[in-house]
């Protein structure tokens, strides 16, 4: 059975330092699933980075005229722009741009999938990260990360709401403009029975047609704005993932510390002979008689080894944790700056779009008014 899918051509240009001209160095085809694979790999190997999101797999937040069909050329084009943006984001990231797999994604067409899988990243992936709703009670949460997670949740919620309403607004606006087109026809019919009024009516009708058809381009432009918002909707998810990772690390750390503490206690009890904590061994000892001093020594030895190991692990986990926080926070700061810049730009371009729409409206109605004045 044949499968139909869309593939995207990726052309990489490297800029020659000497003359600033870009030269086409690589050119290959990739499909959406390969982009997904790349991203999943990055998520595992760079858990402290806010990894750029992919454009949506299926069209969401559509308004009636916009197609929800994945094969629709407008959707494909917008997705292409989104995928290009994704790659550009990675390429401009100080850390991610150096990744080998990313480099190969751009340069090695065949075998790339195998290469990625060979890294064994799927095994490294923490399945708990996928379980979005599972809660892990962390005793000493880092307030910065809790606040950030809360922010990312709120951001997701507000941008979704915004996109939903915007789609409805677009729908209604479309209706308003299109109904005006009916004036064109009726003015034309009416002008046929009029003597002096005829010309004015007829030409005004033409302007009403122009008005009605102008909405298509206007709303197409607005989709770009919606796409910019969508990118940050998905970015909020990536931000949340970093917080989640930190939460899990913290949780693991606390569990490990707890475990170590209880082992130390057990050891102490065995050494001193006092039983402060309940243990199965203690119970069986009571039931079946005390163990021999040799047995006890053996157990203490095992525990001491485990304690040593545990302390080493805890140390490295602590180190890992501190590194993570340091690196994550650096990337979060970078991300914040980027977000503020990008969203400001998006708002400005949105305002510019609205201004353009208003000016067009004024133009059309002024023309129509002129025609009416000649009636």
């Amino acid at each position: 059975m044949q499968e139909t899918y869309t593939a995207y051509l990726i052309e990489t240009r490297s800029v020659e330092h000497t003359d600033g001209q870009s030269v086409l160095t690589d050119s290959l085809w990739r499909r959406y699933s390969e982009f997904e694979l790349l991203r999943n790999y990055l998520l595992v190997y760079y858990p402290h980075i806010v990894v750029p999101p992919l454009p949506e797999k299926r069209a969401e937040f559509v308004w009636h005229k916009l197609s929800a069909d994945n094969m629709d050329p407008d959707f494909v084009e917008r997705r292409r722009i989104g995928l290009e943006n994704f790659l550009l984001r990675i390429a401009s990231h100080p850390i991610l741009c150096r990744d080998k797999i990313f480099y190969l994604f751009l340069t090695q067409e065949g075998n790339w999938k195998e290469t990625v899988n060979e890294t064994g990243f799927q095994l490294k992936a923490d399945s708990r990260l996928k379980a979005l709703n599972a809660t892990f009670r962390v005793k000493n949460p880092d307030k910065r990360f809790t606040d950030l997670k809360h922010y990312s949740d709120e951001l997701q919620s507000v941008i979704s709401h915004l996109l939903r309403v915007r789609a409805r607004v677009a729908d209604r606006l479309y209706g308003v403009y299109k109904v005006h087109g009916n004036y064109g026809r009726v003015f034309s019919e009416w002008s046929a029975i009029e003597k002096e009024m005829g010309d004015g009516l007829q030409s005004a009708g033409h302007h009403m047609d122009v008005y009605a058809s102008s909405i298509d381009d206007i709303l197409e432009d607005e989709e770009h704005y919606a796409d910019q918002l969508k990118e940050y909707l998905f970015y909020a998810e990536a931000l949340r993932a970093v917080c989640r990772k930190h939460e899990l690390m913290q949780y693991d750390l606390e569990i490990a510390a707890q475990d170590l503490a209880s082992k130390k206690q057990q050891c102490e009890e065995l050494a001193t002979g006092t039983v402060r904590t309940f243990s199965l061994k203690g119970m069986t000892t009571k039931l079946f008689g005390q163990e021999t001093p040799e047995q006890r020594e053996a157990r203490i030895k095992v525990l001491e080894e485990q304690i040593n190991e545990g302390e080493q692990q805890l140390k490295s986990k602590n180190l890992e944790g501190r590194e993570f926080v340091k690196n994550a926070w650096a990337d979060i700061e970078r991300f914040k700056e980027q977000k503020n810049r990008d969203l400001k730009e998006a708002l400005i371009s949105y305002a510019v779009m609205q201004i353009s729409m208003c000016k067009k409206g004024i133009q059309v109605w002024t023309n129509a008014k002129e025609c009416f004045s000649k009636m």
Partner: protein
Amino acid sequence: MAGGPPKALPSTGPHSLRDMPHPLAGSSSEEAVGGDSTPSPDLLMARSFGDKDLILPNGGTPAGTSSPASSSSLLNRLQLDDDIDGETRDLFVVVDDPKKHVCTMETYITYRITTKSTRVEFDLPEYSVRRRYQDFDWLRSKLEESQPTHLIPPLPEKFVVKGVVDRFSEEFVETRRKALDKFLKRITDHPVLSFNEYFNIFLTAKDLNIYKKQGIALLTRMGESVKHVTGGYKLRTRPLEFAAIGDYLDTFALKLGTIDRIAQRIIKEEIEYLVELREYGPVYSTWSTLEGELAEPLEGVSACIGNCSTALEELTDDMTEDFLPVLREYILYSDSMKSVLKKRDQVQAEYEAKLEAVALRKEDRPKVPADVEKCQDRMECFNADLKADMERWQNNKRQDFRQLLMGMADKNIQYYEKCLMAWESIIPLLQEKQEAKFPVTAVLS
């Protein structure tokens, strides 16, 4: 004043109405063909009466004031120019000052009718009376009765079909007042109707009910004669020119009906768009509460959308109050005109039938009997009156629609200008560098 027999009036003549300034000229008195920069003296008068305290149902603004953006047209109107192509106006009528009356049996609105005239038919130079809608209705049917060969202007609809409208609301009362004012002005402008007895009584009588009750018949000579035209005659063919008028009116009414439906649909879509906008704007506001550096820009966008929403609401209100009623009026107008055409047909039919009867009698008297002559006379007068009125109507219609459609275009331009201003004003806000305001230690942004 109710004295003296009706005068023998020239019912036709080259007395076509020139381009008079339209009483309802809105804010756009542009330099247009025909020079309508001359003010309507009626409105000038309205201002000199002063805006007395109004007991309006919702305590709103006095009904006499026109739309805000009309200071330039106000100036225009103050430049009194009585002589328009040599014509001197000697009769001015204004409808204003709606007041609510609450009685045991009913509640209703009355309007003040102010008349100023130098005509001899009026005993006093100035009159001020109060009339309610049913008085206008009475006047109209009396005019139809007494002036059957003329086109009588329409009244605004008696009942409000779409029961959502409150008939005591400011908007409804104002819309009705404008229509009633227009009705009287159209009669005032008519060279024959303005001299009608009933019209005079309507403008001057202290208590109209006396006249209504007594059912005084003050029919004109023509009215009297046409009244007796029996309806039994069927016209074979309508003369070409009247058939053309009939066809024109049919198509005209049809097209207006379509335009009315389109306009209503547009308003409906705009209102639905407005509903969504009112939800859309505040979301930006909510978002801004989450942000640091982006808070002001987002709040700015929210406020901007709010301003656009308000502008849109003003547009839909204007269209509902000023545009739709005029369309409806003209549809009613063309309906009543078609009935006049039919009456004319009957008069002609009677004449032709009687003429035929005489011809069949084969009398060798070449002289035509008196009653056939009377029929012919009747028909010819009717035709002449109707033709003159049609020409007048066509001119006025052209003026009215020019104003109406220009007004519609204007309102849309104003809407876009308001939105443009809102968006242009936030660009600097969006581009502003926020570094100075927010310290680096801000947690979330």
